């Protein structure tokens, strides 16, 4: 069984990223002839279109039934935003799991109006270490801008995920689904974003 949660803020594209990943997982199981493999994708998001906390749970396996990952059972947390990575990670990351985190902050109204504090990035990383999780960080927003648009940050993060040994879905199939699911005019930019995210994490892991 493989469990992952993608955490972010409404509008960052975490829902599209989770659908790409779940769809790719189904195609991979069909390609392998694994008829027993089931895929579930559960989403929690606020009432608003934009700006609220969003978490997408993806589960792959033969004994998967419900759409949500239990506490302390997420193999990977893909954090599109640091505070959201922590919000989800503290509850769900499994001991020994991996947190892949975009370090670009998206401040809440609570923080902007001075009614709440935003923890520092080093504090967030330290917190994950205390939970026995491994942390990979990258400025995925910057990488996405290099690829052509900041909006492709979610796909940079999928590329980063694809570079991790824990990822169960072949890179080729992920790229195939990206082509099918992103707006046709943005396919090239998104594939570039995926590649840059993949390369960044591959290099970091080699070091």
């Amino acid at each position, binding site marked *: 069984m493989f469990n992952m949660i993608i955490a972010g803020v409404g509008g960052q594209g975490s829902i599209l990223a989770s659908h790409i990943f779940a769809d790719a997982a189904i195609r991979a199981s069909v390609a392998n002839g694994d008829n027993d493999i089931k895929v579930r994708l559960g989403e929690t998001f606020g*009432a608003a279109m934009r700006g609220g906390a969003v978490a997408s749970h993806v589960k792959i396996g033969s004994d998967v039934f419900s759409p949500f990952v239990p506490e302390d059972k997420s193999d990977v947390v893909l954090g599109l935003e640091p505070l959201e990575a922590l919000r989800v990670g503290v509850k769900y990351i499994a001991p020994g799991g991996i947190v892949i985190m975009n370090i670009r902050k998206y401040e809440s109204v609570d923080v902007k109006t001075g009614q709440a504090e935003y923890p520092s990035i080093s504090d967030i990383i330290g917190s994950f270490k205390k939970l026995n999780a491994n942390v990979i960080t990258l400025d995925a927003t910057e990488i996405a801008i290099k690829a052509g648009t900041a909006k492709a940050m979610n796909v940079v993060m999928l590329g980063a995920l694809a570079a991790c040994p824990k990822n169960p879905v072949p890179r080729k199939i992920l790229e195939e689904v990206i082509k099918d699911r992103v707006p046709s005019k943005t396919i090239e930019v998104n594939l570039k974003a995926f590649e840059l995210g993949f390369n960044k994490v591959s290099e970091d892991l080699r070091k």
Partner: protein
Amino acid sequence: MNIVASNKTNEKVLLMGNEAIARGAIEGGVEVVTAYPGTPSSEIVETLAEIANDFDYYVEWSINEKVAFDIAAGASILGARSLVVMKNAGLNVAMDTFMTLPYTGIKGGMVVVVADDPGAHYSSNEQDTRFAAVYAEIPCLEPANQQEAKEMTKEAFEISEALELPVFLRSVTRLSQASGDVILGEFKKPFKKIGFNKHWKMPYRWNVYGPPGPVNKHKWIHLQMEKSKEIIEKSKFNTFTLPANTNIGIIASGLGASYTLEAISELGLEGKLAFLKLGFAYPLPEEKLRKILKDLKKLIVIEEGDPVIERQVRSFAQDIFTEIEIFGKERRQILNPYGELNGDCVVKGISKAIGLQLKENQKRVNIKREIQKKVSPRSSTLCAGCPHLGTYWAVKKALQDRKGVHIVNGDIGCYEQGGYGVFSHKINPTDDNSKAYSISSPYEILDTIYVMGSGIGMAMGQSQAGYKDGKILAVAGDSTFFHATLPAVVNAVYTKADITYLVLDNSWTCMTGHQPNPTTGINTTGEKTKVIDISKIAEMMGITCIRVVDPYKVEESIQAIQEALDFKGPSLVILRRECALQVQRREKHKNPQTFIDRDKCTGCKQCLRLGCPAITFDNENKIAGIDSLLCVDCGLCNQICSFGAITLKKGNNYV
């Protein structure tokens, strides 16, 4: 192409629960589809509307759930297969016909899909509408996953026709809004054989009062439900495993069954428990129930929502199996009778019932508790450039100039966020009779929120009770205006209620995903249609003080609201400006031209009080900023900055 319209039979694809229900309807040969949008149900009809041209059914977003229900019923008594979809609260609106239609029954299969919202993620309450199916005495299906959601929808048409009764399909947020692997089936061609026979099989068939009258028609429902027993007993959706030598059993339905299967494996109890998985929440398969209860000492009931099945099981067991201890959400309580289920609480509940001790890593629990303190809340916000931001700024300013404790009654739509508060803002309640509070953001402006259309009614009640401590206002959106407030507006004029009604007209039903409505100019499938002007309707209903204003124009909006507040009697302000997200999607806004003049910004944070997510603040340098990924150049912050520090790059205009 939308995957729901795919003709690749037997292909395994990823479908959202709502898409699976839409697919099931087409595989069941649906002919008429109606709904009013409401999260978590909206994608069912959104999908069916998107692919309508590929198939031979009629689909519409109706004005409200009652109208949607009546349309589906009208089609069904002619023999057409119909599907009507709504959220939990929507059923309350449709309740009148819903309770009465079973008396005559139907002819063409009629499936009523209601998506409940345990956890109240997108709803005013957690009501369990399975009670309504029991109340109306019609069968109630409850899918456990996306595949079942599709199969059950398809099968529901058959059951409905076999019993000549509407069939209820109850979904929940975590099924409708979640996705899973689904194997596609074949499409069924619609029958297209409609006809009308006033005395079809029975005298005065479609007239509850026609002889032999409502009591006999009620009796007929009971005869039909007696017939349903055979269908329920044989149904592939009710399955059970009964290992030898066990005296502990679980009955679980819907998503509860999915959590239970995972909990059984987590606790290593495979093959050690009797397990009845129910696909029907009503009526129950009594033969299967008898078999499973026979040797049990303990029975655990796990269901999403209220103890609907638990009560039926207890009532069934009380005469025959008096010794069984029944665990669930009441009496022997192992699960909360509020909130939603999850894998962890089901594991804990089962353990508690059977006396298993769960190991807990106390050290990790403590570490998590410490880290949790650092996770600050993220309040939800309106979108950057949302016209409601301008409206609420103007409301705040208009009320600030008047002494008193003013009441702003809210309603349901994106603008309800005007009452969500800032999550990290601590509130100290008092027992003063009337008390005014300062408003620091648009998220604190609405004082009451209940359900669609209740705001204006509440306002009238406050006016008629003689409230004099301040002004009385009500707020609603364009879709809500048509859905639930038309009778209330007439009532206000007729009774001379002294209230100010603000209609926030942004031309779309936004919160549920931008469905069109009578103010949009297009219909459900995108064809052009007449725009119905709210101000003209209000005028014909007899409102004499009507102002129409653009909420992007701050001073004009304040002025219009002031005039309405000064008017004695019912007044109306229509704040009209299309949803900024829809404009963005259509016009592909380029890089924003709004910027902060660093020399002029004093760091006063006035602009932050607008509540726009595109406005940022640099705490180190005490200076505001604009998030270029979000800003749409609406110009609201430019108008509220007292220092002229927010402005446009040369040669550009605000929208």
